[in-house]
């Protein structure tokens, strides 16, 4: 036992204060349980097929797609922070960069894992690369997400190699050093890829001519939702990063970044959110007054069904859009950590709601004159499978925090000058 503690200790960065091995194990235990449960549920879905879920021919997309879209939006913090640090040279955001990479990696890999369960023929996933239909938004999403996942993994490698034991291997240390010189390139590629797939995830719905609730006019080949999803993703990414960091600080009971970083992330998030809300409002007006009437659908076709009534639309724009934007920008509130985090939370909820509306409400609403409004409750297999993704995220982040230099703490200054 003592040896075990010793070994665990040896992998923790020198001088980094970490909780005892036992406490850490206790912290992980419930998450590991959740993970195993989810893996079992996913196994059921893969073995017996998707009849294990409560999806059906109308709800062909369910909770999985909705939450996948949500966490991919949240994961946008990774590419956006990289973009800010390496492309826009916002050096003061460096302290959260590694953390952002881990968050992004877990979000994306988790989402992809769930997608693999969600499709009816996971073994044919590669068909998308082999017979790509370049007109499909989903093709764009698949290509970009898989590439970007690769980028995230590559960006994660240097962080891993800086683990105290791994770095003792000279080749690792040297590789990490050399590779790090190229990370800005990856950040650029990541930005390019993310720009497209975050947008295409919105395009996914915007192009649904057969679903007037989701269909949007747009520019060139991209419906307006392409730009709205992109905007909302980069707006909420930093907010989510703030929340994760704050949670980490709460759990570990240590200050991990300077308050200034929060301020900056919050401000960026807030400004983008404000722009998003404005664009969203305009888009909604255009859609309700021009796009959908032209195909014979009016507001009462969309908002006369409880509970998905117009209050949802209002909520998405004002309390979960405008309000957080103000909280994150206004100096009065932005100075107070509590308000800042409250704003970030609201912003995340806003994007969550937006993804919910586009995924679930689109399918719940009737199209034919003799359709009904349908509802759907996910089965425990669906919930558990997704719970596993959350658990996976927590576990990976905890392990990374414990054994890898996610934040600058207890080290000499200048450590990151060339190693970021």
């Amino acid at each position, binding site marked *: 036992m003592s040896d075990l503690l010793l070994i665990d200790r040896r992998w923790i960065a020198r001088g980094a204060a970490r909780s005892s091995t036992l406490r850490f194990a206790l912290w992980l235990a419930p998450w590991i349980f959740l993970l195993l449960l989810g893996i079992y549920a996913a196994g059921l879905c893969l073995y017996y097929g998707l009849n294990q879920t409560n999806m059906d021919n109308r709800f062909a997309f369910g909770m999985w797609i909705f939450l996948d879209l949500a966490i991919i939006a949240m994961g946008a913090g990774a590419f956006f922070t990289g973009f800010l640090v390496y492309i826009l040279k916002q050096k003061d955001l460096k302290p959260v960069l590694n953390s952002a990479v881990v968050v992004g990696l877990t979000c994306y890999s988790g989402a992809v894992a769930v997608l693999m369960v969600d499709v009816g023929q996971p073994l044919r996933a590669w068909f998308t690369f082999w017979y790509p239909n*370049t007109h499909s938004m989903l093709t764009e999403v698949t290509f970009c997400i898989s*590439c970007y996942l690769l980028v995230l993994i590559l960006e994660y490698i240097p962080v891993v190699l800086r683990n105290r034991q791994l770095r003792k291997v000279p080749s690792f240390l*040297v*590789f990490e050093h*050399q590779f790090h010189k190229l990370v800005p390139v990856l950040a650029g590629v990541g930005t390019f890829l993310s720009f497209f797939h975050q947008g295409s995830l919105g395009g996914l719905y915007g192009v649904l001519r057969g679903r007037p609730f989701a269909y949007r006019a747009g520019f060139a080949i991209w419906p307006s939702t392409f730009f709205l999803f992109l905007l909302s993703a980069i707006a909420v990414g930093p907010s989510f990063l703030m929340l994760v960091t704050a949670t980490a600080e709460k759990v570990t009971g240590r200050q991990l970044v300077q308050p200034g970083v929060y301020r900056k992330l919050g401000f960026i998030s807030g400004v983008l959110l404000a722009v998003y809300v404005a664009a969203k409002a305009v888009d909604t007006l255009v859609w309700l007054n021009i796009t959908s009437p032209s195909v014979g659908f009016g507001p009462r076709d969309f908002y006369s069904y409880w509970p998905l009534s117009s209050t949802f639309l209002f909520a998405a724009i004002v309390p979960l859009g405008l309000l957080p934007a103000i909280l994150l920008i206004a100096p009065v509130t932005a100075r107070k950590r509590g308000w800042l985090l409250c704003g970030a939370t609201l912003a995340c909820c806003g994007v969550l709601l937006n993804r919910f509306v586009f995924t679930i409400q689109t399918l719940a609403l009737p199209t034919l004159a003799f359709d009904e409004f349908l509802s759907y409750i996910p089965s425990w297999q669906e919930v558990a499978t997704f719970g596993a993704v959350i658990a996976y995220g927590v576990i990976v982040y905890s392990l990374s925090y414990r054994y890898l230099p996610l934040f600058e703490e207890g080290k*000499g200054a200048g450590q990151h000058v060339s190693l970021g």
Partner: protein
Amino acid sequence: MFPWVDGFHWTMGHIVFLSLFFAAVLVIGSTLVSALLWTASDFRSRRAAELCWRINFRELPEAERHCRHEFAGRAPSRVCDNAFDCRSCQNYAKYAALPGKDFSRNRGVHYSVNLLYHRGHTWVRPRGDGTCTIGLDEFASRLIGKPDTVDLPAKNTELVSDGVAWRMTKNGREIRVRAPLDGTVLSTGGPEHEWFLKIRPHEPLNLRHLLSGAEVSGWLAAELDRLQLQLSAPNSAPCLADGGTLMPDLMDAVPQADWDAVLAATFLES
């Protein structure tokens, strides 16, 4: 995807989309490959060890990167920015010219004036015949006492300055002792001998980076302070509270101390 795949059309969409995709993949791939190639070349040109040391040095806590001239009292508090390699330090001459003070307060850790000390707690004794012997200084040996195992390099191994000279273990902890200078191993001693390695240094022999004279006592004093600070961490007994001498085989004496931190600081591991 590829023209030979059923369903491929030579349409604008395909061409633009796929070329963008392949471009991205290419960039990602080439970053990885070039990083690997650079790494390989570093090893081929023997720069790897030094590079490792420099990366490692950068991540040392500031307290462990103080300049030798500070210990000699020639300079105010100054942090080294050249990885302790005074041979290539521009400021060396400037400071070396200044008058120094001797802080030597004998705290029971003896050092010899005719030994040259490396910051990694090894000493070098140049011999007439152009070879040098390398040993562990008293501070380190008292810390460790009798190591459980000692893993010395084979004959004719090329040592690289600040690279790993030899490895030891004590109470399940690995200790990597840094080489004080470059050279070829001629013969090996060990804890029972008074030296560990006899090497033939590379020509031209330049030992400027090693501490000597008054610097050593200042440095050792600082090290002792550091050690005392570390050992008086909450979970360790106040063994040096008396400011007295450093007892031999401290690792066995004070097993509950945070030896990871102590050893890392002692042997310059970040």
